């Protein structure tokens, strides 16, 4: 398996996604940009707690913040999600090869069983 993507960043993406609050934040951002206050609304959490989650998402590159000092609205950057999808696709040839071997093995089993029955 050759790594063509930044592995550290990929594991950060997975770590960022492995939390239900952060996934909810991303889902909200998929509908459009929002301020931290707006993002915090549906949660029973303090603003600092929500900010912490947003920082994790920022570090993983999934969220970008606007430069306007007052609001600094958050927006979703889906590029790291594409890398996650690349991860998944690397597994495809491995599984395909395994299933080819399963086919071969089943053929062998069938041949042995037939051989035994024929005796």
């Amino acid at each position: 398996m050759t790594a063509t993507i930044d592995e550290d960043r990929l594991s950060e993406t997975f770590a960022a996604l492995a939390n239900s609050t952060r996934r909810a934040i991303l889902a909200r951002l998929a509908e459009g940009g929002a301020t931290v206050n707006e993002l915090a609304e549906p949660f029973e959490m303090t603003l600092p707690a929500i900010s912490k989650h947003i920082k994790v998402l920022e570090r993983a590159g999934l969220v970008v913040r606007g430069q306007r000092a007052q609001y600094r609205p958050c927006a979703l950057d889906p590029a790291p999600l594409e890398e996650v999808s690349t991860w998944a696709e690397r597994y495809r040839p491995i599984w395909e090869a395994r299933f080819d071997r399963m086919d071969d093995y089943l053929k062998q089993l069938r041949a042995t069983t037939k051989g035994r029955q024929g005796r």
Partner: protein
Amino acid sequence: MTNNGSPDAVEIERIVDAPLTLVWQMWTDPEHFRAWYGPDGATIPVATMDVRVGGTRLVCMEVQTPNGPMRMWFTGEYREVIENERLVYTESMSDENGRVSSPSDMGMPAGHPMTTEVRVELRDIGGRTKMVLTHLGIPHDSPGAAGWAMALDKLTAYLAAYRDRRRLRRP
């Protein structure tokens, strides 16, 4: 691509020329499992499987390297066991005692997620078996799974739109 577009999953569908019960054994009987599971050039010297919900599994994969054989261990837990129909288990890299280790400890790419989930669904189609494998980067029945599925749907739609936009921008 049979992937349903989910950014963290690989889905493969195969028709296996064997009866349902035998294909189920391919996954749950260590002796059968060892015969096919190792990737090319790898063998499976150890496979223990306590195939019931909450039961653990431990699989050793041995790869030949120029410096001699290298062993990698994988542990996991069975989440769903419906005989001849549906098998769901998690998978993490571990040591030989099944203690979960971080991928980088094992000299594996750091990008490999800590725990992945493997789902196998089987269906009889006239003596042969339709097998659907789904390998997920994040176990979907972890806490907040419903929220995850919803979030994932939205992200998937967003990602598709993002890809379209990028394609359009190219000359």
